[in-house]
């Protein structure tokens, strides 16, 4: 099914973490952080991955990069299956896919100079040497908008935004094609957020990068992403082009998320209808029997408690995993036929 337009293809990916108890570490259960997730990312696009804290966004991003060994499923990157690759070959592949972290204060080794941090990928993969390496590092620093003379300084001498730029320079060092951006702007000031997002967009244009942009900032998603995947409790509940999602969200969870975005117009803001969800997210160690969202869904039906909805493409490039959405779609298409 993979064509040369697809850079990343994830099928039925599961990432379960064992819950152990007692002296002998008996496994008493599994935290289903990512449960049966499938999607594709096209070359050069930005796929947004949104969802609330603890829904498995970060785990999914790391499982794709093989930083966690997935429990089941396949991850195909540039046509090559990663989950079965031996470790040594994996290291070669990883140079083409990189990660940008949420917290710029813990993502840089405090005992290394900035130059050494950015040089590290080159050293590990034996790219260039001596003078050549120094030049590459300077280029990278300048590319992300830092003064190349900062190379001899240590990370603690920089601000959050500058540190995030250093992290981006490190991720770019090996000319990757695919970058997982794990909430890259969440811990930054709003004014700095725009700078970093603009930098990432510029880099995408210049270098033809593909991003998996993990975030919970829905207005930022609309700005930077081409498509969006909404996650809830380890599953993707809706996957669609960004405009289709914002104009015609089909999953009740997505609808409630979108209703929470403040509108920068006091008149509209006053009349904004919020869909407030009841209760808490169930534990990923013990998800509900039917649809994962059935405990909180405002439109829940009898069927939702027993069967699990699958992700179905209800409109072109717009998939939803929801019985309610499915039924209303069926009704609509029947009316069309009549």
């Amino acid at each position, binding site marked *: 099914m993979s064509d040369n337009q697809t850079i990343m293809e994830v099928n039925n990916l599961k990432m379960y973490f064992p819950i152990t108890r007692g002296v002998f*570490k008996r496994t008493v259960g599994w935290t289903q952080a990512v449960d049966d997730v499938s999607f594709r990312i096209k070359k050069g696009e930005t796929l947004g991955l949104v969802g609330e804290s603890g829904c498995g966004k970060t785990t999914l991003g*790391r499982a794709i*990069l093989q*930083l966690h060994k997935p429990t089941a499923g396949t991850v195909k990157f540039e046509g090559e299956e990663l989950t079965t690759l031996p470790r040594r070959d*994996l*290291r*070669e592949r*990883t*140079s083409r896919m*990189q*990660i940008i*972290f*949420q*917290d710029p204060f*813990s*993502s*840089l*080794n*405090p*005992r*290394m*100079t900035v*130059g*050494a941090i950015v040089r*590290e*990928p080159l050293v*590990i*993969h034996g790219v260039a040497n001596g003078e050549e390496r120094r030049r590459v590092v300077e280029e990278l620093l300048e590319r992300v908008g830092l*003064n190349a*003379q*900062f*190379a*001899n*300084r*240590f990370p*603690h001498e920089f601000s959050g935004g500058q540190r995030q730029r250093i*992290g981006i320079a*490190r991720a770019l060092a*090996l000319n990757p094609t695919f970058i997982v951006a794990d909430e890259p702007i969440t811990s930054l000031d709003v004014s700095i957020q725009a700078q970093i997002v603009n930098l990432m967009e510029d880099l995408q244009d210049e270098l033809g990068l593909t991003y998996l942009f993990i975030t919970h900032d829905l207005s930022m998603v609309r700005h930077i992403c081409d498509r969006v995947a909404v996650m809830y409790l380890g599953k993707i509940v809706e996957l669609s082009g960004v405009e289709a999602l914002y104009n015609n969200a089909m999953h009740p969870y997505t609808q409630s998320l979108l209703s929470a975005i403040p509108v920068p117009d006091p008149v509209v803001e006053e009349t904004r209808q919020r869909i407030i969800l009841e209760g808490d997210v169930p534990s990923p160690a013990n998800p509900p029997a039917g649809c994962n969202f059935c405990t909180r869904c405002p439109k829940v039906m009898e069927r939702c408690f027993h069967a699990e909805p699958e992700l179905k493409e209800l409109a072109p490039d717009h998939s939803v995993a929801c019985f309610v959405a499915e039924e209303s779609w069926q009704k609509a298409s029947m009316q069309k036929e009549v």
Partner: protein
Amino acid sequence: MTVDTQSQVQVAAEAGAEDVLKRPSYGYWRDAWRRLLRNKVATIAGLYIVLITLAAIFAPIVTPYDRDAPDFGNTREGPTIEHPFGTDPLGRDVFTRVIFGGRVSLGVAFVGSLTSMLIGLTYGAIAGYLGGWVDDLMMRFVDLMYGFPTLLFIILMMLVIPPNSSPALIMVGLFIALGVVSWLGTARLVRGQFLSIREQDFVTAARALGAKPARLITRYLLPNSIGPIVVALTLSIPSLILTESTLSFIGLGVKAPIPSWGVMLSEGWRGMQSDPHLAIFPALAITITMLAFNFFGDGLRDALDPTMRGRD
């Protein structure tokens, strides 16, 4: 190396006037060395440690007197020009004996802490890096060893060595006994450090870049856990000196006529009222050396932490 670094610092200072951004390129260790030299107390403490170690090694050259030969014409003298630390009841020069005593005390301290460091670091690093059931198993063994009374363990070990064997053998026995029990704390410390740093994003970043375990440990985990390790090491040296004194005092350490600071202190203590110099000088040797190690350790910890740059 020192001269080289200083000249570079000078170059940097001159360049700094025109271009504040530019700083000479230092590796991590060069930078640490530079910061250590800037800390005066630590430098002086370090110099003292080097000096007293050299004096102990070259003891026969440093002092004109024989360590054991009695001189009954000059017993129990106070400090004089000829005998700066005075003489003991057998007329032996106290300064000479303090210097020679340093061989045992410092030797035990260095070798003991070195073995404890080597075993503890390796053991803790393996447990902390691998984690999981390996870590569990390894740490339960440490717990088991911890439960065993240290002094009793050392006494049992020392009993294996026949009491009339050569001084060298007894020294080796001491080293082994102290080394074997003192690595436990180091192992726990290193393991704890590794476990917490292992989960940090910059280690994940290195793994995403394909760094091998050896590189992860030497470039990421170890440099970031070195602070507490160095402090523990320098604090363990004084406690090793004291343990050696204790053992020698109860007759399990080195035996007369070989002096160690602990032995000299325990002997001198009895004549404290008539000849205070017999106890004061070995006590001073222990105290000053312990202080020096503490100051040096503090300085080293700060020097190894780049975030301390520019702070005093």
